[in-house]
């Protein structure tokens, strides 16, 4: 196990370095941030002063070297706009985004697995066909459009739920959390559901496919031949087997939940990392953009590692293969 983790960590470090180069050089091809900070009445000397202050006068490979050396020490540069550490800005906004992503993940599991199970166990029933049709909608409707429609229906027309902000938050170990207050929960509901919609559809389809396949397996028939109750067969024999692919995919999708929250956060004015990213792109705040992308890469790397570990806990065959080494 430890050899496995060590090898994975090394691979992860290489991925991070590769991503850093791509992101850094990529962002330098887009626009010149200096012009975001100068006013029309400034003369050339002033502009050069600003350029020097931002460190943009040096050749790009020198900038890259400076970026990499400080990045290894955990410093991803200063935001041009806020004058603060870019990483610090992102970390500040991270709890809001993570809360949203976890809420969406929770909804995906709570709705996706039972609905998918039902659709898999009774594939010919009307309800199942409705579920599957719904999941196609969930897949194909664009997130931003659904978000706007949700605001229209639930906030504007019905007036049931608020449409912007986090609402009242509770401070837990220095982290602001919305879901612990009723007001916060109401604020969380719409954006979380909006973000979860795609994942609910995904989990429904995965669970249904897994269920239909597993129900034909001999071990299910053998379990029936033992005289087990249907709830035991479905709840233990079936669920434990189909959970393996579902956990793998959901884990990997968690990264994309965080990444996708850019759209949802913008629509619902949720003060998270995604909203910060959009603002930074508009202002060409390069260090923040780079830091955000590095953060997302880091998140994916960590999630992949965790998924592998959880997977080995769920599937005894994976465990043994590793021990046998």
């Amino acid at each position, binding site marked *: 196990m430890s050899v496995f983790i060590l090898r994975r960590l090394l691979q992860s470090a290489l991925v991070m370095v590769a991503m850093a180069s791509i992101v850094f050089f990529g962002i330098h091809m887009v626009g010149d941030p200096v012009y975001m900070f100068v006013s029309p009445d400034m003369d050339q000397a002033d502009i050069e002063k600003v350029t020097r202050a931002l460190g943009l006068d040096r050749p790009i490979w020198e900038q890259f070297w400076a970026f990499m050396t400080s990045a290894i020490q955990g410093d991803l540069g200063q935001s041009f706009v806020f004058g603060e550490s870019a990483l610090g800005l992102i970390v500040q906004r991270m709890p809001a985004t993570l809360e949203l992503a976890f809420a969406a993940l929770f909804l995906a599991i709570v709705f996706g697995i039972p609905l998918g199970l039902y659709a898999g166990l009774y594939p010919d029933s009307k309800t199942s066909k409705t579920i599957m049709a719904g999941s196609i909608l969930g897949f194909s409707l664009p997130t931003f459009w659904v978000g706007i429609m949700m605001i229209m229906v639930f906030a504007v027309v019905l007036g049931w739920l608020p449409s912007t902000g986090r609402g009242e938050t509770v401070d837990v170990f220095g982290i602001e959390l919305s879901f612990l207050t009723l007001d916060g929960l109401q604020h969380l509901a719409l954006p979380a559901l909006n973000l979860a919609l795609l994942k609910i559809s995904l989990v429904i389809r995965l669970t249904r496919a897994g269920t239909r396949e597993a129900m034909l397996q001999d071990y299910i028939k053998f379990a029936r031949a033992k*005289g087990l109750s249907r709830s035991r067969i479905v709840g233990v024999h079936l669920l434990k087997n189909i959970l393996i692919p579902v956990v793998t995919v959901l884990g990997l999708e968690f990264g994309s939940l965080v990444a996708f929250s850019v759209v949802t956060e913008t629509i619902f004015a949720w003060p998270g990392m995604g909203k910060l990213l959009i603002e930074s792109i508009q202002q060409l705040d390069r260090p923040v953009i780079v830091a955000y992308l590095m953060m997302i890469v880091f998140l994916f790397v960590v999630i992949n590692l965790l998924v592998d570990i959880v997977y080995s806990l769920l599937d005894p065959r994976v465990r043994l293969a590793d021990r046998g080494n």
Partner: protein
Amino acid sequence: MSKSPVLEVEDLKTHFFTKAGVARAVDGVSFSLARGEVLGLVGESGSGKTVTGFSLMGLVDPPGRVVGGSIRLAGEELVGKSERDWRSLRGRKIAMIFQDPMMTLNPVLRVDTQMIEAIRAHEHVSEEAARERARAALARVGIPSPDERLVAYPHQFSGGMRQRVAIAIALLNEPEVIVADEPTTALDVTIQAQILYEVQKLCAETGLAMIWITHDLAVVGGLADRVAVMYAGRIVEEGPVGEVLDGPLHPYTRGLIGSVPSHNQRGRRLTQIPGMAPSLLALPPGCSFAARCPRADAACTQMPELVSASDRRGVRCHHPHRPDEPAYEGGSA
């Protein structure tokens, strides 16, 4: 051998209602099984032997359905029982072992979980008591150090060991009858011999009755007391295993036996049955073997009844062979 039948099957019919038509997978099967007896159910693929087994377990899935006949287990009629009643019977009164031991145990559950749940599905016993019974069952089928094996996962067992575990699970609630669907087909011959030995011992010791579904005549010859040969959903011949294998009455049984290579017939060309098994969707009227039968004539357009050829044997044929005819025709090739 005691004569009281523990299982009586009469005119059992299981049909599959598919889009292409009705497939009569089992079409009027009758047999009975005494305590401690092993009945070999023989036939080629698609002859309905596995569906017969599933019908006895109430495990026929749609579009299939038991449409007629009667199954009496220790005097109790099973056909028409509710799913709830079936559930309580399965694993307790009648158990089943499947063909592929690699597939029958759930890969993500430990062996003890899978054994204890089988006991506790039918009885309110403590987990410790159930575990003790599971341990004893493993020991009984010849699994060494059962305590360690209980906490192992199925993939840590070899194929033969897994089949022993499956047999141990079938034995857990001391059923009256075990339906074994080709349980040794996927195993190599030495393991097969060990399993057959254990099964024979169990039946002799406990009075357990067994239906052994197979296409392997050698296994039937070594294990079964009686044999029933199935063709296209019907039993075409049945009787004591030695008599049937030595002097088959039905041309199909002769064909089956003739197509098996055997030690005492070295150098002889194997006979084969011409043609192929008919589609169950479009069975010809009359004897379903007639199209492949060297003895068929006009009479065979009428379905022959299963008639008794002696007090212990039955055959479904208008032109049966004599029991004393040599099993192999032609001799030289």
